[in-house]
């Protein structure tokens, strides 16, 4: 594995993007930063701007207004960037499948690298997902 990839794997900065969620996934993501889980041990940080991001963490059943925004945000991120769909809603729209304002799953709009199922996923599951994404990056 090259040194370059190792550095990316050791400090993934996460940009958290909520596309019309019920906020449960968001709360679980913030739980990862608390003393109990403390993902800063692995160099993971939440950043405020997508220009700094290595990982885009998408939550929520993406509604029609958000689809265009999500694409814009993905285009604005400096590559290489990893996209994580967090929660069942962003994977398959869950119970909002037949709703009038949900457009399509996230992976129809942008390429998704990691899927983390759960409603909401546990913090352990989110950490495990990020770790698997990093493993994927190493290959």
């Amino acid at each position: 594995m090259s040194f370059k990839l190792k550095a990316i794997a050791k400090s993934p900065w996460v940009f958290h993007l909520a596309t019309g969620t019920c906020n449960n996934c968001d709360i679980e993501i913030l739980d990862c930063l608390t003393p109990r889980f403390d993902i800063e041990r692995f160099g993971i940080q939440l950043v405020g701007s997508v220009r700094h991001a290595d990982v885009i963490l998408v939550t929520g059943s993406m509604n029609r207004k958000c689809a265009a925004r999500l694409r814009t945000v993905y285009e604005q991120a400096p590559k290489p960037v990893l996209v994580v769909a967090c929660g069942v809603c962003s994977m398959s729209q869950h119970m909002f499948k037949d709703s009038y304002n949900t457009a399509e799953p996230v992976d129809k709009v942008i390429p998704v690298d990691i899927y983390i199922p759960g409603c909401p996923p546990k913090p352990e599951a989110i950490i495990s997902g990020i770790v698997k994404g990093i493993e994927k990056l190493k290959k």
Partner: protein
Amino acid sequence: MRILLDYLIFPGFLFTAVVGMFACWIDRKVSARVQWRVGPRMLQPFYDIVKLLNKEVIVPSENRFVFLSAPLFGMASVIIVSTMLWKTIINPSATFVGDMIVVVYLLTIPAISAIMGGFASKNPLSSLGASREMKLALSYELPFVMALVVPIIKCGSVKLGDIVTFQIIHGTILHSPSGIIACAIALLCTQAKLGVAPFDVADAETEISSGIFMEYSGAPLAVFRLTKYMLFFTVPMFLVTIFMGGIYSLVGILKYVVLLVLVILIKNTNPRVRIDQAVKFFWGPMSILGILAIILALFGL
């Protein structure tokens, strides 16, 4: 050749970068321990920089030159400050008269480079951050200079080397009432210079999403980060040099670490102030205290 070596390797770029990364690790580790967390590993700042250097660089505005050169100005000036400080510490008679004034000027350039970069980004939030940084720089410079006048009055010289030798002979500046007041003021101004809480209004992550640095990505962001790490080393080191007599032994290094941890603890125990509160704080109580310290110093206290 010798100057270039000084600038790039030992007291200059490479050395400052390594020590600055270590200082940043101390910052993050102590912050984590205060919040009852474990905190990152020791090489984390280094990994961050290497990662950022390998990312794509996006230039959002047509003003390419200013956008890309702004971070370099800041870093270049911090390297000069660090080189001068180490030259003074290694050999107090090596520097020139008036180097303290040069250091004060050079220490404002990182803020100016951040302002340039923020305005060149053409992003509303970046412009907001840049204008805040400008107000903040205007407000903290006055008490900072007032605090630095106290050692100058006490030693009767504007040469860093003379101040260090004076303190070796007569004891540190911190042993007098005016010295304590001046050092406290300088410490709070350091907080604003480093851009950490309670004065992190310019790059408030939760409020205007990294403000000035918002549009930066990849290598220019890495340079900004590196400048900040270097400032984490340089500014407390400057205070140690002029108020506590420099570092000459293990105790000297301890002085620096204690000052750094003090900065981090102030950062972790205070919420962010608004920009108008920051300006009021620096132009009000801090400036009055600064005048008081100068008067005390003139009376020889």
